[in-house]
């Protein structure tokens, strides 16, 4: 259990050395069967069912009474403005989360990667955003964002700044949602990058310094390339997880005002439970799924290319 310092040779995403059992007959299937069976029953089965529902006119009040309607739900979705709008909201929210979440997470990780007095405490506090459960986070942010009595506007008023409509203007609501999201995800990014940074070989860095490189170029030439695979992985994770994020938006704005924070998942929920249109909701879900898979595929291609580059 003495794992205080990670050994330098293997960052998280590097390919493991090839030392596997070459084939083992039925044995690997015995091992993989229980988890796979579980997922089939509790995830893929329901998923297939939901995809099927997206081709029917199923209603929430009569969930077994749906009839096959072909592409009707998709046609409706693609001919209206709603899908384009919520795709735009989703993509910009995702991009914002990746850029700021990973950016701030990286800055935080770099700031505390070297030992200093009180580092444990600082690192602990920096983790708060990740550790506070979504519902509790929504409650406190709701109160902080309160236009009349919230602390944010109170602080602004000390500097003579007018009250900001944090959650009630179409300009500010997406910003506020992004702010809370970044507060939540940046600590996770920081944690993962801290792990990667610990494995940057100190000798190389030292050598670069001896050669007269300043801090910034040491970072650019040595540190950044070393943590690049991790950075890429964590960015994709952020993107994919952001597409799924639900509670914060649902509890802070419910998708409003004027649908300015209505991501695919929020639209899905509204279609399913407020319009009671399970077929239409299924179609939203399938669009979201395709979007996430595209992001995942892009990551896969990038990683392959990077690996080829490093092998060559």
């Amino acid at each position, binding site marked *: 259990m003495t794992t205080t310092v990670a050994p330098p040779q293997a960052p998280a995403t590097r390919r493991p050395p090839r030392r596997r059992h070459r084939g083992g007959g039925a044995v690997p299937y015995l091992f993989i069967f*229980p988890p796979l069976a579980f997922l089939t029953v509790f995830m893929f089965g329901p998923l297939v069912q939901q995809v099927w529902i997206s081709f029917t006119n199923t*209603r*929430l*009040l*009569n*969930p077994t009474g749906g009839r096959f309607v072909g592409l009707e739900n998709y046609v409706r979705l693609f001919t209206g403005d709603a899908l384009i709008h919520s795709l735009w909201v989703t993509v910009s929210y995702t991009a914002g989360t990746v850029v700021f979440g990973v950016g701030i997470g990286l800055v935080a990780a770099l700031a505390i990667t070297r030992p200093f007095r009180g580092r444990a405490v600082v690192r602990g506090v920096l983790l708060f955003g990740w550790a506070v459960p979504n519902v509790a986070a929504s409650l406190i942010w709701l109160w902080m*964002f*309160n*236009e*009349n*009595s919230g602390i944010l506007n109170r602080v602004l008023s000390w500097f003579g700044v007018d009250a900001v*409509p*944090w*959650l*009630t*203007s*179409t300009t500010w609501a997406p910003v506020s949602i992004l702010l809370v999201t970044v507060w939540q995800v940046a600590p996770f990014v920081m944690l993962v990058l801290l792990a990667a940074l610990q494995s940057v070989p100190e000798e190389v860095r030292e050598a670069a310094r001896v050669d007269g490189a300043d801090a910034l170029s040491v970072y650019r030439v040595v540190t950044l390339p070393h943590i690049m695979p991790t950075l890429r992985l964590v960015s994709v994770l952020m993107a994919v997880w952001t597409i799924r994020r639900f509670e914060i938006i649902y509890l802070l*704005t*419910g*998708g*409003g*005002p*004027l649908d300015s924070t209505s991501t695919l998942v929020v639209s899905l929920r509204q279609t399913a*439970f*407020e319009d*009671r249109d399970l077929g239409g909701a299924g179609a939203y879900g399938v669009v979201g799924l395709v979007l996430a898979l595209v992001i995942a595929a892009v990551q896969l291609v990038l990683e392959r290319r990077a690996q080829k580059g490093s092998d060559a």
Partner: protein
Amino acid sequence: MTTRRHALRTFGAVALGTGVLGTVGACGSGSDASGGTADGPVTLVLSNSQWLDALRGEKLWAAVKKFEDSHPDITLEQEAIASADYTSKITTEMGAGQGPDIVIAQEALFYQLADAGLLVEVDDEVTDGVELNTTADNGVLDDVRYGIAWQRAVYAMIYDKTLVDRAGAAVPTTVEELIASAQGVQAATGAVGFTGRHLIADFSGWMMDFQNWAYGHGVEWVDADGELTIDTPEAAAAFAAFKSVYDAAVMPIGDDMPTQRNRFKEGQVGFSIDNSGGTLNIGNGGALQAAELYSAPLPFQNPGAHQQIYLGISTHSEHAAAANTFLTWLLSEEGQQSLRLASGPDALATDVPVDPDFAAANPWAPTFADLAANSRSTLIPGYEASTDQIMRPVMEALERVLVSGADPATELAVAQSEVDALNLS
């Protein structure tokens, strides 16, 4: 030796695994039973969002629990659902053949459930010989009675007399005066001038509240032939009136209704438009004394609306007989009296006078009783089951007017075309 120990470990891990899975099965089948067996004692599940109200929840529950004294073979159990999730959750449950035996729901949801065939007809014996008042009218759909009234909460304008007197503000009778008085209170006391629902995230609540503004300005939502007419000058006037208050910097924009009520409770709000249930809450447990809480007619030309909550019996209930027994008891003198004590001045299914002690301690209560004579349902006549569906584009149009300053008439025309596309007429 090592081998055996390994084998034991393996066995242990496997046993742990199957043990966990085994428990899954056991717990799953055990927790399914929601009621008693057919011939044994019966458990009735009653769903209501009010069970969660810190103030009224316990009192209302105690009121219905009295039923058990005279019916020892029937046990009542509550299903509490937060009001924000109530409609979606009940719809999910009942659509899937699950849910409570007795649903206690706002009129709109009640109608949708009845319309979808998810409620059963109430036995004639339940209402036999009972003098039902007008609250009973909307419980009937196509000549079949699907529900009886739980409570009716009429709307009025309420105000904090301390603040209003301190500001020397008048009790307003028009929207312009309301703005002036609210600004007066705000300037003189630092409190908030006016509160009212204004968030689309709280659609069903805001829709009901807004019907007061609509009806108050003469809106009907249907013409003489029963055609849906959304785009009218009256509706544009109602939109403009709401917008003028919204823009007057007297409202805490972004506050949800509980936060606004909490403000009022702490003596930090001058005026509000609220129903009797909400007002009962405001007058209890905060810095504001009930004796300082007053009410007045709405500052509109025409009478306003009321919220109406019904009880209905689920089609999926296996205990419809017991449920009817409960409804019979609730309409009995004992049941109504018991409910009265927990309901403040809300109208009940029969005319039970408000408790005199309560009336004496709550100067706001009598006005509500007077206004109930002319108040209307929040549902659109002839389109009861689709009112939510019709009002969503309307409220979205209003949201565009408020948030982005769009023109009321233009947005109402958009709403009209969206409503026409629903093909309900």
